[in-house]
């Protein structure tokens, strides 16, 4: 039993009691004995979807064994606590890679499935849920079900992107993708504004498996400029494994004046100039720095100081680009713009996940230092715009989403609710499933 578990956004929260089983065989008893609980991974969610006040969470990081790996077919089955970096260590030398990877390799496979993570290849490969062959799901009644697209389909769909609420994932079977090298051919293209980004992104869509853009959200007058980074797996190079160990670490929380609007603007300007230099020709980059640049800096979340930060990630439909511009202006004018904003065009490959975030559109992720009411007001304003545009925000990043917003972003939530394990809950879920404040309340009370 320990209480060191933290959410990645570092906004102070009460100590989270944590149980850490070492064997999958211990899970059934442990889970059944809790009044309330939640399976969590390596704590890489930013908000409160990985927290549960007054009850212990069950952390799966010690359940980190590979169950089966077929080097011929690229099918791998693992326990939920295997970190993505550890999985890569095994599969890359054999010529395989994760079909979809988020921007950190320190997340667990179970966590990645429960958040149905997406990557820079959403337009070509969809979200991770599209590549899950089977899930073993333990429920608090001690039942263990193997769920696939055809067996226990509803539970399979509810568990992908299900925020850990349907039970505990005890095994994940994934179809990996073949690679010839662990390197990528990367192209950098700067753009002056969002319209130009949209054009370049559309152009790159068919020729590049991976596309993502960094955008300046901080500098008045230059907001919307950025760099589109497009890449394919390279045929040149070796199959070396990257090291996820941090090259250096932020030793402690930085003082609050480290990040202010001037340092953030300076950072954005410098970053833009550095990226601009890469524009000539194709660059050859290893997967580790390409996919996981921030993993090289241990505890990078500490730069936001002890008050922590919010990440806000949302998407709007493809035809709502004017809304994106509008939102960008709001952020720039607020003076709270973040030092790295990531922009990505999502494709139309649907995930089996009932509660999945990705859908066709433009998706933007940014960090905001925690400044109490001011931050809450900004995010609430952004949520209003996103709702109006028919978009959605991403639960894995969130601590502030209102029940109203959630229920509008995810109208499927009422169907999802039926699959929640009676023992499972999270702070996030308790907030967003609150029907008493909802204007979108369904007329079916749970109990009469």
């Amino acid at each position, binding site marked *: 039993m320990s209480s060191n578990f933290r959410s990645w956004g570092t906004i102070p929260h009460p100590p989270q009691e944590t149980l850490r089983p*070492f064997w*999958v065989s211990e899970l059934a008893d442990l889970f059944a004995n809790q009044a309330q609980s939640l399976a969590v991974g390596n704590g890489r969610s930013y908000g409160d979807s990985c927290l549960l006040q007054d009850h212990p969470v069950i952390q799966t990081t010690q359940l980190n*064994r*590979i169950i089966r790996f077929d080097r011929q077919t690229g099918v791998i089955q693992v326990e939920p606590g295997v970190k993505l970096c550890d999985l890569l260590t095994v599969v890359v030398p054999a010529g395989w890679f994760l079909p979809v990877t988020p921007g950190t390799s320190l997340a667990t496979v179970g966590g990645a499935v429960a958040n149905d993570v997406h990557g820079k290849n959403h337009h070509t490969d969809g979200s991770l849920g599209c590549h899950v062959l089977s899930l073993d799901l333990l429920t608090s009644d001690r039942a263990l079900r193997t769920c696939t697209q055809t067996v226990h389909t509803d539970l399979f769909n509810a568990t992908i992107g299900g925020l850990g609420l349907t039970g505990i994932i005890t095994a994940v079977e994934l179809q990996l993708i073949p690679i010839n090298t662990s390197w990528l051919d990367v192209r950098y293209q700067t753009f002056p504004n969002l319209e130009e980004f949209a054009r370049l992104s559309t152009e790159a869509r068919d020729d590049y498996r991976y596309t993502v853009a960094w955008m300046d959200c901080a500098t008045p007058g230059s907001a919307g400029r950025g760099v589109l980074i497009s890449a394919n797996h390279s045929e040149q190079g070796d199959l070396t494994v990257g090291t996820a160990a941090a090259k250096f670490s932020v030793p402690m929380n930085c003082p609050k004046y480290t990040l202010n609007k001037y340092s953030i603007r300076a950072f954005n300007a410098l970053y833009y100039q550095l990226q601009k230099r890469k524009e000539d020709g194709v660059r050859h980059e290893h997967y580790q720095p390409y996919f996981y640049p921030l993993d090289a800096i241990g505890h990078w979340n500490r730069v936001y100081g002890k008050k922590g930060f919010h990440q806000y990630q949302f998407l709007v439909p493809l035809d709502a680009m004017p809304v994106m511009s509008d939102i960008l202006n709001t952020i720039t004018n607020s003076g709270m713009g973040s030092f790295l904003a990531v922009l990505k065009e999502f494709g139309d490959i649907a995930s089996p996940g009932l509660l999945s975030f990705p859908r066709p559109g433009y998706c933007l992720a940014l960090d905001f230092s925690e400044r109490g009411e001011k931050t809450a007001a900004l995010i609430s304003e952004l949520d209003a715009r996103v709702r109006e545009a028919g978009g959605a925000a991403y639960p894995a990043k969130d601590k502030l989403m209102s029940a109203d917003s959630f229920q509008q972003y995810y109208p499927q939530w009422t169907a999802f609710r039926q699959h929640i394990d009676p023992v499972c809950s999270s702070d996030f879920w308790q907030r967003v499933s609150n029907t008493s404040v909802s204007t979108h309340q369904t007329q079916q009370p749970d109990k009469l």
Partner: protein
Amino acid sequence: MTMKQSIAIIGATSTVAISVARKLAAEDVDIYLVGRNEDKLATVAADLAARGSSTHTIVTDLANLDEHAKVLQQIESATHCFIFHSALTDQAAAESDWSMAEASLTINLLSPLSLLHGLANRLEQQKTGSLVVVSSVAGDRGRASNYWYGTAKGALSIHCQGLRNRLAKSGVPVLTVKPGFIDTAMTAHLEKKPAVLWASAEEVADLIVKGWKQQKNVIYTPGFWRFIMWIITRIPETIFKRLSL
């Protein structure tokens, strides 16, 4: 050296053993896994197989010394042997109940000695291979709070010392590993405080593999325990008696 290595991991379901085995498996070796729980052994073996090594599992209760001859036979092709098995002793129970003290001595001392007895004779003849034995910092000085565990580990450390000197003549290195607090299944019930004194199994495994490759004699894991134990073993007994350690 291109020849395939053959390694025995005794107490293979211990958290540190699993981490060590994984690090060695990446280098394509034949691994013998010895432990009590068949399901857990199978889980570990599958994991190592997925990492490219061939595995053999041997299910036995290591506290049952009568089985050791058979176990030694089953692992007779293993040239490098790592002994991990250990059980924390309930000091209070051992003080009041001899059978608890005896059980602690059996699993933490007699069992590794019985295995080392056979292994040492074989490796001495073969003039190849190595031995790695996980002891504990608890064996460096008797303390009121855990001297039953400390007794077993202290005797184990001394035994390894002697064995190292004997086998040096045959070119068989013996590594004594003295871990401090490790966050493992064995210590899951303990509070991890102060946090700086607790190491992860992963970290300790890294140090063990490194020490083994460098053919070290005695390593403390992590290394700062050498310093802590240097101080602790130098506190005069008259003062030590008044400390509640």
